[in-house]
């Protein structure tokens, strides 16, 4: 019991840090609220889906970035998808990078695009790791009312 409480506390802390460090935004809470008895792992499922789908996008963008000259319209389109997708799980930092990337796209800034995309991938990966740890702990702790400690 004691141990479980401790675990739950850890889960709560991990979760809180996701918000505090700006990795995720309120959309993440929105997802948590969708979680119910019918879909107890809804958030995790959605996140998994997001990573699966975004891997495909990243690959496409990587590929596009190798072209000369860059097809900015195409890149913008991809990034638009990426941004939309990121917004689905509330991946705040990733989304910010997407916006930045699109700005560089419209400015025709090749270097800016490439640099931003690297940063985007870093954020994308960092979030993934954070979330993996969080979900892992959450599973160990069992079902819990994480929504009670929402920020703000």
């Amino acid at each position, binding site marked *: 019991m004691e141990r479980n409480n401790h675990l739950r506390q850890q889960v709560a802390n991990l979760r809180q840090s996701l918000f505090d460090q700006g990795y995720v935004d309120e959309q993440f809470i*929105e997802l948590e609220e*969708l979680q119910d008895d019918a879909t107890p792992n809804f958030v995790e499922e*959605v996140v998994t889906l997001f990573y699966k*789908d975004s891997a495909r996008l990243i690959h496409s963008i990587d590929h596009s970035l190798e072209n000369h000259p860059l097809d900015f319209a195409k890149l913008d389109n991809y990034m*638009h998808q990426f941004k*939309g997708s990121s*917004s*689905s799980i*509330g991946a705040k930092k990733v989304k910010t990078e997407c916006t930045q990337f699109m700005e560089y796209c419209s400015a025709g800034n090749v270097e800016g695009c490439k640099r931003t995309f690297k940063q985007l991938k870093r954020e994308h990966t960092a979030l993934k790791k954070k979330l993996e740890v969080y979900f892992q702990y959450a599973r160990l702790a069992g079902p819990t009312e994480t929504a009670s400690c929402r920020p703000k």
Partner: protein
Amino acid sequence: MMENSKTIAGFSSPRTDIFPAGLRVLVVDDDPTWLKILEKMLKKCSYEVTTCGLAREALYLLRERKDGFDIVISDVNMPDMDGFKLLEHVGLEMDLPVIMMSVDGETSRVMKGVQHGACDYLLKPIRMKELRNIWQHVLRKKMQEARDVGNHELDQYDEMWMLNGVERLSGKKRKDFENKHDEKEMSDSRCVDSSSMKKARVVWTVDLHQKFVKAVNQIGFDKVGPKKILDLMGIPWLTRENVASHLQKYRLYLTRLQKEDEVKASFCGMKHPDVSCKETSSSLSLQNPVDVCTDVTKDKYSGDSGDKAIVQNGKSNIYESKVKGVVLMPVTEPRSVVGDNFDSQVAGSKIGLTESFGLVNTDVESANLPIPYCSTGEAPQPQYKQDFKPHFQSANGSSHQPLPVVSHQIPVDRTQATCFLNHIPSREERNRHPDAENKPSFFKSKCGVVGNFSPIESTVNLFQPVSQQQRNVHILEQMPSTTWSARSCNVVNGPQSSPGNLSLRSGSMVASVGEDVCGASIQGECFLANNGLRNIEQFDYNDPQPISGVPTCLYDTLRFDYEYPIDSLEGIVMDQGLFIV
């Protein structure tokens, strides 16, 4: 069910808790993550959700199940088809409320969405509280539709709708509902009551649309503006906004039409010399199918005082407001015939699905119907046949049909023809479950069959060139027993069929042609499909007999005393290409 009727009778408040529940939502997004989230959210709102990752697939679904959804939520950016394009299709073909969504809140994009007819534009991330409220768009749309017709029974209407929503799972219920809806339309069509309505939507009747097109052509398409059109049209009650919105739709339609022009040409054997005319007509059909019907009713009413009773009878049969085309083929059809037709129909429908060719179905259908009375039709037949044949064949790829039928159906150069086409497919699809089985169900549902007679959906377009009008009259006279289909419900009754055999199909289309429509229309629910009859006035069709045997669906009297302004026909000339649209 019982409760429903009770409530309706009591005119209780339309706001029922049950209403939004069960709202059928189609979500279209290429992003699987969002699709999953939206599905969950919508389910939590107690909506019935269908998700779709491709716009084309969505369009397919929508066409296949015409009446299967109440609202569409679509992403703007999709790889296979621009969300705006989908929006346009849905708006024109299904007339469903569409909510666009995107991460991009740029004003120009939102503007574009709204201009294309989106009822709302949501920004991602979408919150559940936003989705909870989407039913309002459905309700609003329904109310608007009711308003178009008149608003007397609006409350009741809403209520029915809502109640219906609850039981929509059972298609039957819905159908009832629709019938009622139509009924209302019918009965209310005359009254334009502005009192409780915020703003009455203009019913763009054929006549009105023609004036509109005339004005547009006069001004020149490039310089055209709502104000100028309004001035030229000289309709006192029309507002600039009315014209502006119609112009917008018209433009959209023309744009689309141009793109598909080639296709059309290939489909229809005929070519149109006058592009503008063609467009006009087609746009008409697409945009205001309902309106046309309504209009017809109105005219009729105004003309006849005795119609009320008729109308009431008709009520049960009336279909949805959406039905536009009035086709009338009096067909007495043996079941077997139907079977034969089936193949072709299916083929037609498939075609429709692929693109915007849904219309083809219609033609095919009509073509397929063997019309007993064809033989009676004298002079006109040959002409029609010729026209029609090519068309028909192309549509099906192979023609199984007995050509005779075709002859009557040929829609020639009529604006209205277009109308039919559009709608017809919808009807079919609506009733239809996946292809193969459709037929049976289709027929059944469409026809409120009374007796053994299987009505056919003959959607016959009797559109004939003006010059042939005389002949038309002739034909009509010859078929005394032939029932004319009324607005939405076509009463098909073959000359040979005994009264008991008459079948009525509620889902049928109204074939109305321009002004003719009015004339055709009428009598209650039975219409005459006559297109191109300039001389309608001359002809009185009072043949109670055939009808008398018919159960409620049919009307006591069939009379055609409508006068049409013949001039209006001018602009109507269309080409067959429209059908394909």
